[in-house]
């Protein structure tokens, strides 16, 4: 069955549609792969029955000659930040252990409506706070990749680390991710997979456990650009239940994919050439520039002068929003309740939240509480929103000259679990992915090759607001030239 799990999303969809194999065969193969992959810890909950059930419906619809959805017969993994009806939705936190929503997130519902099936809920950094998946209350996800000649457990990136690991290990052809400051792109880069964060507002946030509302965006993670385009079409779209949802039609990104970049301009921001940038990463970036030139694009040096302040801005705004978004986890209506003997209401809150939240979540809640508190609000939060406006303006200026921007996705390849014990070191890993998030821009990561240690590296393409097509096209141009075929050797 290994051949089946090697197929891409489009291959599966087309094969099912043509009757080359059944959706049930597909689901069975992936269910088996998931069942075997416990060592990766990519899934918090596996739902083989749900996958089979969806597959049977697709097969029945096909047999009845009914029209099939965009993702008919494609089983997927769902980041455990999306509410799924009657299936535990935990955000990888103890505070939501056992929580079974009585509702379905807009994005997951759209995927089911398109004929996809649920293989299970994917592990992640707790409340999507983290870049290595180590903050999960269910233990870290282990990357299927290993550095050449080593068997040290590596991070699959984060926060969508379960998603990236599962796609890379062929446990699912595609998975959902969410991206607040790079949580789709960085794990994609670390695992040799492809992922796109669309323009803020493209995908409804309704039913996705909120981390930082002004930054959170859902997106697909898959094996290639075309698969991402197809899946994003199914995920995106106006939702009247989300007041920040973009009231725009969903373009036919997949049908309009075009790797011919003649007439396009690609910006290379000088501020991203960090001192001491990892040589392999720098090399991959140079290679990417060459590929885009080869695809016909003109390469232009640009400046994004406020880049260096993006991380500091992000680490004020995201925790501030999170501190408020996570106030609802209080042990009253769902999830964990810690009620020490004789505790009053406020003591119950404090005990519940102390027991339910992990260290990184607590850290961010405290930072966020502090920067919003009386006397500090203007110095931190208002200041950060002003700098954020400047960062967005930098991009706006740049996009007057260029169509897309090319950068590395992350400053390094995957590192070992436990390697980054200092939170700031961890935060620095988001240096390239955070600025576009602050500006709400579409951005994707595509595999560019392997570093000297045999680990994947990704390149990030950033586009204008609403121009996912431009981003996907540039991604496709790189994909066609990178011919990235490496896959982790199965050790699990």
């Amino acid at each position: 069955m290994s051949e089946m799990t090697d197929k891409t999303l489009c291959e599966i969809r087309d094969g099912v549609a043509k009757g080359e194999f059944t959706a049930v065969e597909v689901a069975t193969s992936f269910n088996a792969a998931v069942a075997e992959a416990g060592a990766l810890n990519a899934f918090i909950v596996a739902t083989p029955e749900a996958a089979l059930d969806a597959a049977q419906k697709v097969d029945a619809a096909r047999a009845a000659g009914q029209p099939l959805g965009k993702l008919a017969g494609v089983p997927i993994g769902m980041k455990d930040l999306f509410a799924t009806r009657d299936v535990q939705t935990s955000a990888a936190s103890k505070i939501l252990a056992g929580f079974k929503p009585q509702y379905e997130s807009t994005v997951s519902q759209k995927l089911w409506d398109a004929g996809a099936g649920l293989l299970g809920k994917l592990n992640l950094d707790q409340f999507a706070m983290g870049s290595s998946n180590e903050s999960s209350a269910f233990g870290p996800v282990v990357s299927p990749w290993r550095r050449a000649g080593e068997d040290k457990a590596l991070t699959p990136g984060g926060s969508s680390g379960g998603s990236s690991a599962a796609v890379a290990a062929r446990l699912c052809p595609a998975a959902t991710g969410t991206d607040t400051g790079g949580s789709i792109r960085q794990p994609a880069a670390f695992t040799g997979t492809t992922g796109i964060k669309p323009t803020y507002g493209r995908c409804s946030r309704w039913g996705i456990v909120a981390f930082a509302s002004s930054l959170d965006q859902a997106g697909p993670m898959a094996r290639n650009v075309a698969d991402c385009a197809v899946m994003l079409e199914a995920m995106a779209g106006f939702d009247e239940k989300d007041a920040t949802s973009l009231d725009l039609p969903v373009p036919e990104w997949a049908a309009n994919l075009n790797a011919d970049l003649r007439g396009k301009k690609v910006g290379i921001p000088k501020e991203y050439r960090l001192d001491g940038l990892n040589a392999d990463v720098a090399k991959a970036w140079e290679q990417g520039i060459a590929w885009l030139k080869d695809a016909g694009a003109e390469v232009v040096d640009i400046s994004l002068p406020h880049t260096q302040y993006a991380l500091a801005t992000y680490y004020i705004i995201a925790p501030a929003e999170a501190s408020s978004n996570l106030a609802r986890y209080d042990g009253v209506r769902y999830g964990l309740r810690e009620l020490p003997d004789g505790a009053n209401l406020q003591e119950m809150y404090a005990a519940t939240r102390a027991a339910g939240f992990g260290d990184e979540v607590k850290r961010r809640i405290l930072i966020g509480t502090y920067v919003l508190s009386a006397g500090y609000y203007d110095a931190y939060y208002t200041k950060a929103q002003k700098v954020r406006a400047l960062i967005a303006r930098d991009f706006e200026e740049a996009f007057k000259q260029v169509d897309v921007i090319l950068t590395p996705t992350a400053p390094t390849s995957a590192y070992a679990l436990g390697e980054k014990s200092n939170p700031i070191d961890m935060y620095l890993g988001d240096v390239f992915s955070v600025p576009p998030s602050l500006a709400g821009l579409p951005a994707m990561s595509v595999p560019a090759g392997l570093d000297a240690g045999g680990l994947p590296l990704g390149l990030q393409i950033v586009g204008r607001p609403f121009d996912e097509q431009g981003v996907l096209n540039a991604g496709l141009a790189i994909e066609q030239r990178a011919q990235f075929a490496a896959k982790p050797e199965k050790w699990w």
Partner: protein
Amino acid sequence: MSVDTATVAKIASLARIKVSEAEVAAMVPELNGILDFVEQLSQVDTDGVEPMTAVIPNVLRLRADVVNAIPETGGDKRDAVLANAPAAEHGFFGVPKVIE
């Protein structure tokens, strides 16, 4: 700006997260590390800059005043909202007694 143990204890209380003294002591340098890091924003000249309000230029959309217009966000959901409650009692959420 930096925080001391008293401030961290106060923030933790404001955030309703119970912390031991040892935890507070451990958090002080961590939080100060982060605050030092974000301190660099004070170097940025933001005179005359409006704080960002909408990531993508967009204004607030309003909905019509209709009860249960969208089933998912309508009322009459007593069972659904109580389904996961740690102490659902006679159609209410139970909490430790509050003296007002």
